[in-house]
């Protein structure tokens, strides 16, 4: 008898010292973005040194979790197994209301707990307003997903 294939898993983010506060906030259901403590400007992706003020240690700011779809794609197989099982699905880039150059990748879904392919990609529009919800990806890794502001 053939051995059972191991269950397909999503790719996990390699969380490091720079990105840990983002994922800790996600576990609490909050969206936090790194912020320059001298200028107040948001910094993404997070890094040890602020590009705006090298001698001011960067801090973190809780943001509203609201934004608009900047662009999106619909991947089709061949993909890694976990993703192939869910394809075609959407991946959106969301420009945050607080700073539209902070564009977070994620998936637009119908609501909490909904599948990656729960939205018909033909209905997605660049510019449509969305907001963050939080979903456990695997283990204790929680990531933002996105729902239409008009829903949920």
């Amino acid at each position, binding site marked *: 008898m053939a051995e059972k294939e191991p269950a397909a898993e999503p790719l996990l983010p390699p969380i490091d010292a720079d990105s840990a506060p983002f994922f800790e906030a996600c576990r609490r259901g909050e969206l936090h973005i790194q912020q320059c403590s001298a200028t107040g400007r948001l910094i993404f992706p997070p890094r040890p040194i602020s590009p705006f003020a090298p001698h001011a240690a960067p801090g973190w700011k809780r943001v509203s979790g609201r934004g608009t779809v900047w662009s999106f794609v619909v991947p*089709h197989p061949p993909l890694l197994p976990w993703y192939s099982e869910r394809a075609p699905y959407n991946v959106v880039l969301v420009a945050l209301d607080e700073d539209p150059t902070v564009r977070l990748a994620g998936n637009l879904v119908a609501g909490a707990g909904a599948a990656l392919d729960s939205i018909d990609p033909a209905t997605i529009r660049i510019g449509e307003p969305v907001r963050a919800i939080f979903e456990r990806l695997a283990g204790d890794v929680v990531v933002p997903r996105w729902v239409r502001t008009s829903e949920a």
Partner: protein
Amino acid sequence: MLRAVLKDAAAIVGIAQTPFAKRLEPSEKALAAQAIIAALEDAGIERSEVDGMASYTMESNDEVEIAKNLGAGDITFFSQVGYGGGAGPACVGHLAMAIATGQCRVGVAWRSRKRGSGTRPWAGAQQASANALWTRPHGLLRPVDEVAMLTRRYMHEYGATREHLANVALAVRGMANRNPHALMFEKTLTREEYLSSRWISEPLCLFDNCLETDGALACVLVSAERARDLAKPPVYLHAFGQGLPAQSHTMVNYWCDDPLRGPAWACAKQLYRTSDFGPQDLDVAQLYDAFTPLILLSLEGYGFCARGEAGPFTEGGALELGGRLPLNTSGGGMSEAYVHGFNLILEGVRQLRGTSTSQVKDAESCLVTGGEGVPTSALILRR
């Protein structure tokens, strides 16, 4: 006043490539050595004279391995360039700088890759790589997905269409159909086939993607002075640039003010700084084409048209032989071979030797670019 130390100071005097195929038997090491030896024979230069080397950080064969297979003597300059498809022209540019500054006399650059029969780099991953931390867990897994994201935004902002992307794919395929060494030599492509092909990552379909190829290529550089005494007509490195713009990210260039103004813009600024040829003067171009939209972004970055106008620029056969800007005249990465763009460099040399299978009549200058969307590089070659 900028002193153009590099301008026409070094020349490509030898080129060679292995066959291209979906699967080749020899190792990447054997293929690399074969290509370099053949390029030295093309130049009429002894292997023992090689004292400079440049290749990609992604190249599996390091200088020690290549030197001992070549039977090279003392190597006094060696350099590796990062960022995959962005590296090709920089390998040649670094050798030219080393020759112009006296750090070496005979330089070889190469790329050997078994991407056709080997594994896809993104497959089999258990964890996203560090630079893909913010994107891959969400299913933006492959280079094609990362480029599709910029493509849809580009189409949205400027009204470019799939017809424009098809213009690129069809022009390049037409070039391959005249090149017996191209993987797609015998395979024609129609607009209907393009438009009805399967999606890979919407809005990009199968024919927006490059090939998966086994093969190796190499070229030899010496000073302009020595080049004049060699068998093959010298092809001079007229200008060279590299580009890594502010707040840029490799492939996922999503976190800067203007993601559609990519590394090509920074690279072009440096490239044209010392060049006698501006974009309007170039006879032919070899633009890095892992994906069709990279051509549109490169046409704008290297100044062939204004921002947002690359779609219409492709119309009316502009990219085909006899058009405004014939490009990727060997078939490029999409239809000749995908070897991280090194075939584009060799085709630039053939255009200026007058030996291309899609020869632009009396071509005097050629632009060769590395990949857009990654820290990149470009050359202007002249005869």
